[in-house]
């Protein structure tokens, strides 16, 4: 069992050595858990406030009643939330499409197994009957063959389904918020 002195020493040491020291480092590590920010309400992003105001004004016009203006702001917030989710999803799919070595996990595992088998044969001097250059060419050809075009796109959809389903969920929620906000605005306007 640890003594009180040891616990104290450990705590003192930990305080002296762990974590980032500089302001930049701290700012960066503060974002470690940040993935896409879609769980946060758009109000928490000050860079969107001007756009929210502009869109709200465009929805109800310049001389609207304060209550109507508030409802229009809710519509604008919900709509920009929808746009935000779509942009993040689009960016996610685009980045995967641009990855030149993107392939299925099963293919990657199969390639690793194959490579290990080939290397173990090489080390045991059990070369196949074909020449070294042909072997290397065939090997690199096999390892660098990755899906392209439609196959790649559909592979991304199926392999990244967990992330894409999460984006779908965020979009559905934002759409539902926008629907309710628009209905409330329409109700208020028709009174």
């Amino acid at each position, binding site marked *: 069992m640890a003594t009180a002195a040891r616990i104290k020493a450990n705590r003192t040491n930990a305080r002296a050595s762990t974590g980032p020291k500089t302001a930049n480092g701290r700012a960066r590590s503060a974002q470690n858990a940040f993935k896409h920010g879609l769980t946060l309400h758009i109000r928490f992003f000050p860079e*969107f406030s001007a*756009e929210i105001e*502009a*869109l709200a004004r*465009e*929805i109800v016009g310049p001389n609207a009643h304060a209550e109507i203006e508030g409802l229009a702001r809710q*519509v*604008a917030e919900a*709509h*920009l939330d929808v*746009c*935000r989710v*779509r*942009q*993040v999803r*689009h*960016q996610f*799919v*685009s*980045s995967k*499409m*641009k990855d030149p070595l993107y392939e299925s996990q099963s293919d990657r595992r199969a390639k690793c197994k194959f490579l290990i088998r080939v290397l173990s044969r090489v080390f045991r001097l059990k070369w196949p*009957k*074909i020449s070294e250059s*042909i072997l290397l060419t*065939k090997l690199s050809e096999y390892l660098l063959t990755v899906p392209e*075009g*439609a*196959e790649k*796109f*559909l*592979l991304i*959809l*199926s392999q990244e*389904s967990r992330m*894409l389903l999460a984006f*779908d969920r965020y979009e559905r929620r934002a*759409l539902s918020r926008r*629907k309710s906000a*628009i*209905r409330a605005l*329409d*109700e208020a*306007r*028709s009174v």
Partner: protein
Amino acid sequence: MIARIQRIRSVRRTENSSNSAATQVKRSVPFGPPPLLEGDDVAAYDELLARVSEGVQPNDILEEIWVRDIVDLVWETLRLRRMKAAFFSANAHESLTVILRPLIDDDEQVDGEEIEGQKESEEAIGNNYLAKNWARRIPAAVKKVNTLLTQANLTMEAVNACTLSNNIDMLERVDLIIAGLENRRNFILREIDRHRESLARRLRQNLEQIEDADYKVVNTKRPKD
């Protein structure tokens, strides 16, 4: 609306010129960038947007937002359907390899090699060689594949069925996404209907108020003689 489309186009041009559309989240009030991926036809997207806008004639900014939503959803649905068809074409030779396996013996496979006149390493000996030549649309290979399939009383349907069964999970996922997109589109169409009804009701009320203000009570009593 036309001005808005031009604005979107100009935003897109700027995005393309800076070549950073996918690297950072961009915003353009009130629509955001269009859902175009590498290889998508920008002109076809613009045409679709213009055609739908012309057909719907949006009355206000909210309807414009919905129109853009519908166009994006339709675009994504069409892309997925296109991709699905392309996937079947791209994987046909792999499925053909499986289908041809019991129909072909080793001697014929060597014939398949001779079709192209390429004699490579021993890896070339494999029953996928004929399928590869078929995928390259080498006439002799195409003819041979057709003959083999006819002899076995098979058609290209069997090849597509093989592709389907090998990738059923992936294709099922795509179908689910398409169904989700169509549901969302239908939901937006219903919202447009409801909003237009509300707009019409508002207009009716305004007109009634205007008419009430202009209405004068006319004295219908006959003057006494």
